[in-house]
């Protein structure tokens, strides 16, 4: 249900001066950054830097105390709730893989497939040939083709992450938010995941929050460093790694 605007927006995501405070504690403090269409962007930062809160603000789980968040230049995300935002075309991948364990991989993807989300439509829903083909494509893309009739609960940690990425892709989003995809993965899985994310950006924007420097290096994309709820540095990995402030935050104290 991605809304067609007929033109390519300047920014897929435009975050300006966002502050979120919980009982006086500022989880985000005047945070500003933008993401361009088709861009792959990594966001790093120490624990408590506000990475998850930032995701919460974009996906409508948390409303900003002040500041503005726009999607595709014109859509004010603070005016919508989670389901609406998901249907606008923003997919979110949680840190802990959350797939529906008692459904098969095929069914997981069927649920996520873009289409009408209404109660009565679901009751009488039947998959047509194109939709099946779409599911088959995605299941191939994330490397789970042979397991499509397995229950998702039987997948390994890494495979669940891929299935979840597949579920996001099949919603046809313009922006994917991916929270620590490499956590708990083997080195091999990590490098495959980086490859998958590089592959799927371009057609859509992908924002990855991550700790793992090896993984960021494999992503080979612009990096934004968050610290105490604001942007500390932005640029290539090499550039931010040589930034004095970043070194101090990560290594100092």
């Amino acid at each position, binding site marked *: 249900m991605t809304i067609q605007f007929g033109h390519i927006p300047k920014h897929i995501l435009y975050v300006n001066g966002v502050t979120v405070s919980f009982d006086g504690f500022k989880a985000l403090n005047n945070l500003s950054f933008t993401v361009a269409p088709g861009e792959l962007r990594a966001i790093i930062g120490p624990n408590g830097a506000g990475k998850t809160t930032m995701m919460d603000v974009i996906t409508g789980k948390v409303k900003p105390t002040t500041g503005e968040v726009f999607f595709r230049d014109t859509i004010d995300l603070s005016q919508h709730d989670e389901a609406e935002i*998901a249907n606008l075309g923003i997919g979110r991948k949680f840190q802990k893989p*959350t*797939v529906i364990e008692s459904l*098969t991989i095929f*069914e997981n993807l*069927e649920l996520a497939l873009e289409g009408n989300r*209404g109660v009565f439509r679901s009751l009488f829903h039947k998959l047509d040939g194109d939709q099946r083909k779409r599911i088959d494509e995605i299941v191939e*893309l994330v490397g789970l*083709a042979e397991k499509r009739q397995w229950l998702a609960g039987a997948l390994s940690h890494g495979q669940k992450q891929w299935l979840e990425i597949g579920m996001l892709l099949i919603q046809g989003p313009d922006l994917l938010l991916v929270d620590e995809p490499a956590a708990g993965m083997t080195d091999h899985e990590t490098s495959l995941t980086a*490859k998958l994310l590089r592959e799927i950006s371009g057609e859509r924007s992908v924002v990855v929050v991550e700790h793992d420097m090896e993984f960021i290096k494999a992503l080979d994309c612009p990096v934004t460093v968050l610290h105490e709820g604001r942007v500390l540095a932005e640029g290539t990995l090499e550039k931010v790694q040589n930034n004095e402030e970043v070194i101090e935050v990560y290594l100092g104290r």
Partner: protein
Amino acid sequence: MNDTTLINTTMNHAKVLENSRLGWLLNDVAGKRLLTVVLAAIVIIPLLNLLVPPDSFFHVSTYTVGLLGKYLCYALLALAVDLIWGYCGILSLGHGAFFALGGYAMGMYMMRQIGDRGVYGNPLLPDFMVFLNWPELPWYWYGFDNFAFAMLMVLLAPAILAFVFGWLTFRSRVTGVYLSIITQAMTYALMLAFFQNDMGFGGNNGLTDFKDILGFSLQSDNTKVALFVLSGLAVILGYLLCRFVVASKLGRVLVSIRDAESRTRFVGYRVEHYKLFVFVLSAMLAGIAGALYVPQVGIINPGEFSPINSIEIIIWVAVGGRGFLYGAVIGAILVNYGKTFFTGAFPEVWLFMLGALFVVSTLFFPQGVVGIVQQLKQKRAERTAFRTVAQQSGASTESTPANDSKILQEPAP
């Protein structure tokens, strides 16, 4: 969960997906068996009651028919609870309220049918209203002399309560144990309200002394057998409806809500709408169960709203097998048969047994009787599979994820 279950379960799923229009029913092997048994029961038992002479060994007494009819009503109620609890994770500890509302709607119809045959002989007012010196029929009793209207209320009264209650709670995202406590409070509040004489539903005594239904005497064997058959049909239709719902995509959304509510929301489903739909549907089924129950037991009083009744329903479903529709039916019949037997034989220990049953089934048999049967079957299948594998050892069929991917073709470093 191991691979054998996986394969079994997934093959079922696959078939449901592949199959044509009736796949939702045809692939439900256990369900079909259950429906056959119920169907056979509502054909054979009436014959054994009406045609076989009372002194024959094969005669089924009218008492037994009534008892079985009651169990069938409970089975429908258990189906309703399993639909929301087993498939959507909504643990309602107040579902007895919807059952009771359906029962009261039916009771009101039968009260109006008594007419001037009551103790006080008032053609319009039920006895308890005459006793309380009420001058006229309260407005909310209007229309209940009409069977069709009363049946509409059997559906609408529970549906409206469920809609309002569900609208308020699901929208505020009340879930889990908090929701359970509120449902319990709801039924308790209704119980206290219905105890009041001023409510106009017969207070403490409730509604009773029914004479007939649609002109058929409630005392006659034929009527009792007919009510039993109707209860059986209601269970069959209720089962088919629930099965259609859970086998549809909507059913998979419900399971998704049960297992990962916020994921479902982020995929773009309006969780509260789905919950509301299934909650209202479940309440209506419970109402129908109540409406069939009341003419068979001959009374409805506020005791039916008592929280313990609602908890008992949960026990039936847990014992039978939560998340299996046929498990709910089996559980309801099994536990209630146990109740009939033990309250007769050892009345003082029944409640302890009921409690123990719940604890044991939750701790050791989370999937109830149905789960135990499945486990046994699976063990047998595993032994067979093990033998087969031992014969053709060496060949591994499992492929690594990297191998079946198009993009992810890089060899392991």
